[in-house]
């Protein structure tokens, strides 16, 4: 398809539609509201489900209900709204049903502001909801990547019966860029062996629940999810490398911070500094192994984020103290500028 000029949030919404999204449930919050607005028009046009919920609590539980029936479903929100959704996310994880959630992050904590930030890394990657679970978390740095990763998120969620989050910030959400859309896929209802879409004279009844009242049964469930996670870690790690072949200094940044870091890396290269960039695409599963391998030939790491140093801890875990790990971050919605 030819490239068109797309705004990040609207590109995500249209991509979800083309990926076969059957139902969207959301609540207005800046800077993601264009996703809700776009789908309020687009979904009914296609005879699909759109509901503006009474709250993010309502929205995520509508997602949960629809996910149990086995259809492609998503919600989107921004930081404070995603905090409210954490209860539902834990239940979705505990029930092992697929769902997609987009978080267009903003400055925080609390009400914070509506400027671009990455302060929800820990909440997304290390699980903001209660209990043992690991979400898949994708971090786009451009409108094109937001499109590609939104399409991927539905496949991953279904493949692993897991919650898949796409985390971006107001920069990518609000920015317009030329990008190529995927083809429209028809809505397709898979013949799952787990969904609760009523017996309809065809099968025994099914129950979907996150309750395992016997600890031994809960542990079995925990281990089942953990084993699935081991597969995800082995197969689904994605990242981009820039100038890493001879890099003595490795910069690590995700999303917008990674994209800004690339400009800085290019400037440094022009000055003859041997610096490269690793930009994780999946921040969960995190590319620990790649960083581990880079540690063997790098003199130092510089982590850059639009937060106080959250992914920094994961880089440190991979580096294991073998070389220095420095940090540069701007907080509260301040976007760093190279140079």
């Amino acid at each position, binding site marked *: 398809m030819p490239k068109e000029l797309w705004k990040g949030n609207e590109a995500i919404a249209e991509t979800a539609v083309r990926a076969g999204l*059957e*139902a969207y*449930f959301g609540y207005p919050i800046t800077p993601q509201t264009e996703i809700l607005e776009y789908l309020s028009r687009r979904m009914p046009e296609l005879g699909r*489900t759109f*509901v503006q*919920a*009474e*709250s993010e*609590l*309502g*929205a995520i*539980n*509508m*997602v*949960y*209900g*629809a*996910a*149990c*029936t086995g*259809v492609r*479903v998503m919600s989107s929100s921004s930081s404070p709204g995603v905090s409210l959704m954490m*209860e*539902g996310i834990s*239940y979705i994880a505990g*029930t092992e049903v697929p769902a997609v959630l987009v978080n267009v992050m903003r400055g925080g904590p609390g009400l914070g502001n509506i400027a671009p930030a990455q302060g929800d890394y820990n909440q997304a990657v290390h699980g903001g909801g209660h209990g043992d679970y690991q979400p898949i978390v994708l971090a786009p740095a451009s409108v094109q990547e937001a499109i590609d990763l939104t399409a991927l998120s539905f496949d991953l969620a279904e493949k692993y019966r897991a919650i898949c989050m796409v985390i971006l910030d107001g920069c990518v959400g609000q920015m317009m860029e030329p990008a190529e859309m995927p083809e429209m896929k028809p809505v397709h209802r898979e013949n799952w062996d787990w969904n*609760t*879409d*009523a*017996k*309809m*004279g065809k099968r025994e*009844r*099914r*129950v*979907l*629940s*996150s*309750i395992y009242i016997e600890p031994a049964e809960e542990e079995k469930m925990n281990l089942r999810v953990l084993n699935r996670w081991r597969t995800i870690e082995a197969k689904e790690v994605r990242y981009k490398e820039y100038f890493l072949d001879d890099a003595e200094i490795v910069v690590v940044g995700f999303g917008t911070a990674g994209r800004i870091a690339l400009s800085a890396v290019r400037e440094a290269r022009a000055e003859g500094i041997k610096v490269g960039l690793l930009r994780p695409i999946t921040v969960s599963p995190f590319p620990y192994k790649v960083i581990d391998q880079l540690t063997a030939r790098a003199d130092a790491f510089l982590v850059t984020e639009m937060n106080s140093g959250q992914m920094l801890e994961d880089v440190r875990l991979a580096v294991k103290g073998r070389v220095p790990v420095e940090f540069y971050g701007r907080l509260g919605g301040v976007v760093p500028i190279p140079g």
Partner: protein
Amino acid sequence: MATENLVYDRPEGFTDTPTHYCPGCTHGVAHRLVAEVLEEMGVLEKTIGVAPVGCSVFAYNYFDTDFVEAPHGRAPAMATGVKRVMPDRIVFTYQGDGDLASIGMGEIVHAAARGENITVIFINNANFGMTGGQMAPTTLPGMKTTSSPNGRDVETQGYPIKVAEMLSTLDGVGYCVRRSLHDPKNIRLAKKAIRMAFETQSRGLGFSMVELLSTCPTNWGITPVNSLKFVEEHMVPFYPLGDYKISEAIKQIKV
């Protein structure tokens, strides 16, 4: 020669699992009425239930239909998600007063306001049963619970919420009534109401709810028989039985 006729059996809408409810609790009666209605309407195969958090958290073990289990209070939102993508299915929630009228008040009000085509069976037994009998939004003034040990003081602990009356003010509601389970006559009336609520849904006539005044002998600390008397003598006067909203289209339904 004498013949034996079986006049009372387990409804087809039930699984073989015995319920975990306390002796004398009316959850079992309410469950049975729902199962009988679903069976009589011939909709067991296309029904998806939504269980709450509370004493009826394991409701999904007892009904022979598909079931999902909601977070505390969120059943109407979850039911919305199910029903919107499966509009030809019958979707119901079964919720207690802590679940529906306390933590889930936002979800129930908005599901009703949107006119979601779901049926809500609301069990009002004036306390949080599962956690051991704490004060609920429906606890009567002066009623002793484990968190209102001197009796509910409305000055500091607020007034009970009359859910059926409140929801009946919303335009999205098609059918909203209160019944009681304290004697056979009222149980029969309750079953008729449950039937009408599901008929409302199957005809796409909007949100339907039946509030059922129920007993909790264990947490009330009185016998099952005295619990039934308590409902009749104390709860019915405070929570009057009646039809709070029946839309014109539903009044025409004859079953």
